[in-house]
């Protein structure tokens, strides 16, 4: 399978096509809009399902195989802001707090991008370490904490106002909805193992890809509505929104190979590294760095990086991984 086939396999999957449909509908100003509780429901489902499956996989693989790549993933998340922050600050000429906010978003991860990647690997018949969900679980928070730290240093002195205490931020980063669901479901899966899986498989596994397709339809409308903001963010950020994931993707792939992951697992670590958060990070940043401009980080992560990864990025990282492992 060469790159163009890899791309086609992704672009012609129901999930990605539904994503494009949603974006088109938003651009055409259709009134298509999911009710908010449906959005939350789909999120809850996807996170618990992926976490549960990951947990069952850990139970099978054993902690001894899981701990090293997990630590690596965690470190990766914490490290990404260290290079993105100065780039944003000096090449992008962003204010300290905006650079910190963006760095947090790109160090953190997008669960949906990860899930779309597992879907893709399944579709092209590429096996992967299914305990990789644990990388997703540990990569969300570290970058947020690092980014907030940068940002707090940036606004010191002007800290009048509603910015949250460090305690609140840590609480939010570690006990936010997505982390609780993901980590919690990982534990449930690890404790119940195959026997538990047999009970809930028809709910958490079989319909999973269809649910993802529906969810990406909604995400398409959300991203599509943001497209109009592209004009406001400037060329630098648009370029950043594509080049940062490419760079981070390579970082993730290389690290994955170094810590002994197989081709599939390294691809997933690359995808995670390349992805930017657009739910957990915005919520935490809005709470702790309200001075940062949400249009910048939401547009970059939601209207540029997310669509890029879901359509082109995933098959690209996979292509590179195949070359790396050949």
């Amino acid at each position, binding site marked *: 399978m060469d790159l163009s086939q890899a791309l086609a396999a992704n672009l012609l999957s129901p999930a990605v096509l539904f994503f494009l449909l949603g974006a088109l509908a938003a651009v055409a100003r259709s009134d298509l*809009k*999911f*009710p*908010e509780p449906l*959005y*939350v429901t789909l999120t809850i489902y996807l996170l618990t399902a992926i976490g549960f499956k990951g947990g069952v996989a850990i139970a099978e693989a054993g902690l001894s195989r899981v701990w090293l790549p997990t630590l690596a993933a965690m470190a990766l998340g914490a490290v990404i802001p260290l290079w993105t922050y100065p780039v944003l600050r000096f090449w992008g000429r962003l204010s300290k707090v905006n650079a910190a906010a963006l760095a947090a978003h790109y160090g953190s991860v997008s669960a949906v991008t990860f899930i779309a990647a597992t879907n893709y690997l399944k579709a092209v018949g590429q096996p992967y370490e299914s305990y990789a969900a644990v990388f997703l679980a540990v990569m969300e928070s570290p970058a947020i904490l690092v980014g907030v730290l940068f940002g707090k240093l940036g606004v010191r002195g002007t800290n*009048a*106002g*509603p910015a*949250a205490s460090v305690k*609140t931020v840590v609480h939010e980063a570690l006990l936010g909805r997505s982390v609780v669901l993901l980590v919690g479901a990982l534990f449930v899966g690890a404790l119940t193992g195959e026997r538990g899986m047999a009970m809930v498989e028809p709910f958490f596994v079989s319909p999973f890809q269809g649910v993802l397709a529906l969810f990406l339809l*909604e995400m398409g*409308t*959300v991203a599509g*509505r943001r497209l109009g903001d592209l004009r406001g963010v400037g060329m630098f950020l648009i370029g950043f929104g594509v080049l940062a994931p490419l760079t981070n993707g390579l970082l993730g792939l290389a690290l994955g190979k170094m810590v002994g992951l197989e081709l599939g697992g390294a691809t997933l670590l690359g995808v995670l590294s390349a992805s930017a958060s657009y*739910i957990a990070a*915005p*919520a935490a940043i*809005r*709470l702790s760095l*309200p*001075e940062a401009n949400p249009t910048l980080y*939401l547009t970059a992560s939601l209207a540029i990086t997310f669509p890029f990864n879901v359509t082109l990025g995933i098959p690209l990282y996979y292509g590179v991984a195949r070359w790396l492992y050949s």
Partner: protein
Amino acid sequence: MTTYPMKRVTIVTEALAREAIRRLLAEAGAHGYTIFPVEGAGAQGERPADIAEFGNIQVEVIARPAVAEELLGRLHREFFPKYAMIAYESEVRVLRGDKF
């Protein structure tokens, strides 16, 4: 019925400001609040509310005039520069004046 004059402070803002607002209310001495999930549009564009985190909330607080004054002042100084938000007060007459 005897009713007592009180202020109602209404805040419309982004849902992500929720915790910050709740902390403010506690600090300013409000005894309660009511929150509505809403959609809206204003200077900072439309907020279509299909993702809770990107939607709006309206917060209504019944409070004594001094508390209302304090609330509005802090909203103006600390929140307006950072959040999409409007805030206003109006006169209401409550039952059980000592509750607020």
